[in-house]
């Protein structure tokens, strides 16, 4: 179990995060926020790349700073920019990382084959990574994060570069793993986590905005999301007065999904809020800016 108590991080005068209290048990947690909201800072602290300026991070009730390598043994990490040696094959690189992870040499080869199978790279395991596509490299990154069968899996933008089929496969893999691991998945792509996350963590203005299951978060917008149809001309005026969340052209009209706290009009149809709506509403001011 990971527990963050009063976590804050400053870089000189700049505050990257403040007053974060969180607890992660086994399951999948989606860390959702736009770029610059402090996601990567939070992740860097969780993987011990950065020390919090205030507060303490605990793993099974012990500060991770004290646990040191004992904590690092328990984590699998995929950085946002996954680095690799171009002349290595996936197998060679995973062997190297297995040594750094302190894995038992007797099980390494078998485990490498297992994780490469998991990410569908078994048939290219001995090919140099120099010639790999972005998606293949990302899959090597996912494989190395899983290599030591860590208890805590921290993935920063793991689906970047993956095609829809690979994304679906990845979500399925995470669902399986989430049963006995703590998985923290940082993304700004709502669809990556909407269906698989047990809880969503949202950050705003360097602070924690929500930590709840997707349904609970969506309920915060109950009665505030509507759809209506209008002409193209009317739409230009409409968007000045309302926060539009999605629009599409349909039979010569605009079908608009929007957020408002006003009393609904007769031609507005109330709809169920989706996580994407919550994201757009929560960060509307930042997107305008």
């Amino acid at each position, binding site marked *: 179990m990971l527990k963050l108590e009063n976590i804050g991080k400053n870089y000189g005068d700049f505050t990257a995060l403040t007053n974060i209290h969180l607890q992660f048990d086994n399951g999948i947690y989606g860390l959702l926020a736009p770029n610059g909201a402090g996601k990567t800072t939070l992740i860097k602290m969780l993987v011990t*790349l950065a*020390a919090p300026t205030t507060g303490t991070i605990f793993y099974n009730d012990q500060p991770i700073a004290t646990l040191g390598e004992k904590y690092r043994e328990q984590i699998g990490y995929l950085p946002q920019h996954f680095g690799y040696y*171009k002349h290595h094959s996936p197998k060679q690189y995973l062997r190297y990382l297995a040594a750094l992870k302190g894995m038992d040499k007797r099980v390494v080869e078998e485990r490498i084959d297992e994780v490469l199978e998991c990410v569908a790279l078994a048939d290219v395991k001995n090919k140099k990574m120099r010639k790999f596509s972005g998606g293949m490299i990302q899959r090597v990154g996912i494989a190395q994060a899983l290599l030591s069968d860590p208890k805590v899996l921290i993935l920063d933008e793991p689906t970047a570069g993956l095609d829809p089929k690979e994304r679906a496969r990845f979500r399925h893999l995470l669902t399986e793993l989430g049963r006995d691991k703590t998985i923290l998945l940082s993304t700004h792509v709502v669809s990556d986590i909407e269906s698989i996350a047990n809880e969503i963590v949202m950050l705003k203005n360097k602070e924690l905005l929500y930590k709840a299951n997707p349904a609970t978060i969506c309920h915060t917008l109950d009665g505030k999301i509507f759809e209506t149809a209008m002409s193209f001309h009317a739409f230009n005026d409409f968007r000045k007065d309302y926060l539009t969340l999605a629009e599409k052209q349909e039979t010569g009209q605009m079908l608009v999904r929007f957020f408002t706290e006003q009393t609904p009009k007769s031609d507005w149809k109330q709809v169920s809020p989706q996580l994407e709506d919550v994201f757009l509403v929560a960060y509307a001011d930042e997107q305008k800016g």
Partner: protein
Amino acid sequence: MTKYNHIPYPTDEEIESQIDFIVKRGLPEQKSFFSQLQTLQSQLGWFNLLPNRNEWIFTFIAVSIILLFVWLTLSNEAAVTPTYFALLFMLSPFIFASLSLYSFYDKKENHTYELEMTTKYTMFQVIGIRMLLFSSFAILCNTSFSVWLSFMLEIEFFRLWLLSLTGLFVFATGLLTIMKSGQVARKIIAYVMGWIFTNSLLIIFANTYYIQLLIQLPIVVYTILIILLIGLFFSAFKQMYLRKQEGIWLC
């Protein structure tokens, strides 16, 4: 109440000895620092100490350049002057420095450091082991160079050898001290530039005094200095090896 008064209460010494016994049996045995290094080396294996082919190529080129330099100098006996003392002191750490610093550059260039800092054995620890390996190699090179120079200048080998080792350990201890703290990259660049600049200034503007000092410093002083420096080297090495990993690339 009275019957309990007859139970003999242990003395303070007995309590302390029992606590020591329980703690000793209960806690896992603490490995010594050198035993930790040995474990790490055996876990990694020699190949993984230099995982990137570029590092092997760089090592090969660096060693070739040094051998070429020595061979060229050997072939021109007239060029050998006492200034070589100062050069020996200044350049002794360069095999060590170039091999060690290239590892940092390589990790940063490939963006692998972020990953290699979050594994059980961190990049610092692996680079630490490499530095020990490189320093052994640098000692070998310095010894060979000192043997050759002692023939050329007809000066006792031991003095030259100690001089070159002093240069190596002064530089290496300084480098390790820098690596204990944050903002490593910027500090290392400043340190290497400072080393070259200061030594060059001394060679150019205070040549005679500087060389006299290097030549005439009694061997016993060199020996004491070396012992002291080796102690400082391992102390700095241990602190660097066990340092927290945060903040290494803040430049």
